[in-house]
């Protein structure tokens, strides 16, 4: 297992390097610059700004400056939020998205897996149809519709919850972002769990267990649950990264100050270092959680060994 972990770390370095290189040059090849605006700057003013950010140097030099910075843990200054570095912005916004994300993840897994198993065990019953209908609605209902609907209902009509803000994660501020964030994940997890459970329940070892006269709860908990979870876990790895790195919709509608909106706004503003920062962050987390998924596989499935 240790060898496996070291191997994954060793593989991660070239993967990240390729990711950084491709993203850097793609970003720099986009038309416009961080400082192009409707009010175009006099050339002498623009020259001073470009010099300050090394943008007057060849792109290859900028790339090596950037790599040098990363090696020292410095993601560079933000071109858009000039008073802040990317490190500061990530440090401020990632915990917000992570908190919303972790709650959403826990809720999505608990509700999604429970609903999926329940529906699978009552396949083609009313409950099954209800769960699947909910799952399909959850998948097709985009959160840019769900978020304003939540605000309209809970904040404007019922006046139960604040329409936005974060206030250090006080619970009333968490509820709606978590609903908006988790709904589609609940739906996806319920669908995958249901499909996997149905497949497992039809397999030979379950038939054997039934033939031996084991009670239903033991068949499910001891024998069916583990193999059912395998496809769910391979979905959860990348889903976890997606959920804790936030959503632009949640950030924009609920004004939480999370990291989600930096993905889109970074690209639109040509905030090169912001785009690179979030790319590296998501890239690293994806590699990390894929490795975690692989390890969990080995724990759950005795056939898999590293």
């Amino acid at each position: 297992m240790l060898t496996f972990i070291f191997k994954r770390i060793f593989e991660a370095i070239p993967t990240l390097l390729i990711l950084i290189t491709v993203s850097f040059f793609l970003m720099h090849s986009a038309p416009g610059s961080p400082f192009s605006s409707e009010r175009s700057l006099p050339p002498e003013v623009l020259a001073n700004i470009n010099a300050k950010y090394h943008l007057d140097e060849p792109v290859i030099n900028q790339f090596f400056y950037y790599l040098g910075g990363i090696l020292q843990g410095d993601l560079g200054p933000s071109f858009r939020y000039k008073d802040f570095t990317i490190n500061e912005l990530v440090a401020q916004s990632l915990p917000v998205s992570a908190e919303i994300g972790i709650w959403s993840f826990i809720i999505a897994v608990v509700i999604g897996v429970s609903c999926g198993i329940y529906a699978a065990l009552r396949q083609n019953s009313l409950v099954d149809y209800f769960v699947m209908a909910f799952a399909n609605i959850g998948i097709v209902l985009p959160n840019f519709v769900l978020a304003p609907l939540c605000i309209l209902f809970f904040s404007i009509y019922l006046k139960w919850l604040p329409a936005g803000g974060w206030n250090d994660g006080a619970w009333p501020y968490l509820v709606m972002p978590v609903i908006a964030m988790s709904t589609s994940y609940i739906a996806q997890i319920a669908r995958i769990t249901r499909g996997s459970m149905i497949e497992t329940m039809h397999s030979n070892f379950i038939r054997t267990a039934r033939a031996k006269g084991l009670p239903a709860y033991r068949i499910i908990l001891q024998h069916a649950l583990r193999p059912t979870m395998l496809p769910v876990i391979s979905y959860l790895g990348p889903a976890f990264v997606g959920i804790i790195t936030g959503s632009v919709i949640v950030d924009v509608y609920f004004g939480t100050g999370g990291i989600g909106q930096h993905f889109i706004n970074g690209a639109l503003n040509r905030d090169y270092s912001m785009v690179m920062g979030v790319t590296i962050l998501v890239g690293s987390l994806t590699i990390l959680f894929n490795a975690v998924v692989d390890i969990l596989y080995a724990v759950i499935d005795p056939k898999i060994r590293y």
Partner: protein
Amino acid sequence: MNLKKTLLASALLSVAFGAVQTQAADVPAGVKLADVQELVRGGGAEPATLDPQKVEGTPGSHRTRELFEGLYNLDGDGNLTPGVATSYTTNADNTVYTFNLRKDAKWSNGEPVTAHDFVFGFQRAVDPVTASAYAWYVEIPSIVNASKIINSKADVKSLGVKAVNDYTFEVTLERPVPYFVKMTSHQTLFPAPRKTIEKYGDEWVKPGNMVSNGAYKLDSWIVNEKMEMVRNDQYWNNDKTVINKVTFLPLENDSADLKRYEAGEVDITWNLPSDHFKRLKKESPNEVIITPQLGTYYYQFNTQVEPYNNPAVRKALSFAINRDVITKYVTGVGEQPAYSFTPSIVNGFDPETPAYATMTQKEREAEAKKLLQSAGYDKNNPLTFNLLYNTNDGHKRIAIAIASMWKKTLGVEVTLENQEWKTYLETKKAGDFQVARAGWIGDYNEASTMLDLLTSTHGNNDGKYSNTEYDRLLNEAKTMQNPASNYNKAEEIAINQDMAVAPIYTYVTKRMKKPYVGGYQPNPEDNIYTRDMYIIAH
């Protein structure tokens, strides 16, 4: 009255005026104030910076105006009101301005605001090390050596500013610029706290480090969540301030802004979504505030490519736009149809109505057909082109409406082309367009803020319109005490004669404001100060 006397009179007038009029919350008798004086404002996009010398964009200006104060302020009508300066005098040829500063102006750490802070602020704005995107703002009034310093051809200390003593600040201009004092209300020319900036470097604007001289001081800033400011008890006019705390929420999305307002979490929105205008106007007519803004929405012609180098084609396209339909049915929140480039609300200049504006739309359309035919185009040989705009639903609706007007009246075949913001800017800059959507909001309340845009060498003249006489008139206007006649001639040339651009409508600011917020003073430049406001008991 000769020039000198006029200048002296105007200077004395401002001094006298300033002595009685200051900006502060003016609570009418009988109004009962709420116990909690806290205001939450929708603040538009998160500003790039709070450093006054570096701020760009209105969201940043709104916030820095709360935190800092320059020599003078502008009231709702664009008139000067005293800030740190109480009066000023000028020399005979109007090139040396001497400002007398109040002795009770203090930074939030209790230290006095002196002429040295203004010297440092002005120098920072042009210093290449600061790399301010607004450095050009100091070039406009032609402060001595500003351009040379920005170009790294002179030392920053050679800038034409001087602290005669702690409370006398002197600015020397290379040529007389009549509107210079008005320009001092802009944040680029605010004072800067040298000790704090030298101590913290770029970090000086962070909460805990920042020292400011406005009615409020920075308390906290969580990017994309909120910025909180509390009353600065060192502010010279603090006794007249009523609101104790102001919070700006960075709500770039109009719909999110409105939802927070409707949920009672925002007292004044930044904007309001046009789609909701009719509903809001019906449900809460007293809360919808529409104010004409100093800015024009227009279509730009690339005058370097055929056939848009032909004024007849430009005029035909402009005449065929039914501006009443656009403002009434497409934008529909009180925008005014624009026929001249400078909005009529600009201070000190009332543009003459151009001839084509006095015609009926039918007459304009008939004339448009004739003009386009004279250029060799008709329904059998239609003019075809791409209309470029930046991706946005509002721009799209306007483009569809205008394209159909052109098609119906002139048989013109238009392909709509939308591009993401920065790509669109780059395309326009490269001159790779035929007709493009554009808009311009004035930087200061004077007609040159609009008209300069069409001079040959202006960096934002993307259509590359060029007319020597126009350039001469605008250049001459810079040193004239009353340049209105030049501005009228310039409008006549650029619009009535050449139709360099097709003005479509004058912008408006549109906001929702709770009825319990008093003292809100809307104005064309959107200079809104929380220190003027108060919360009525409700």
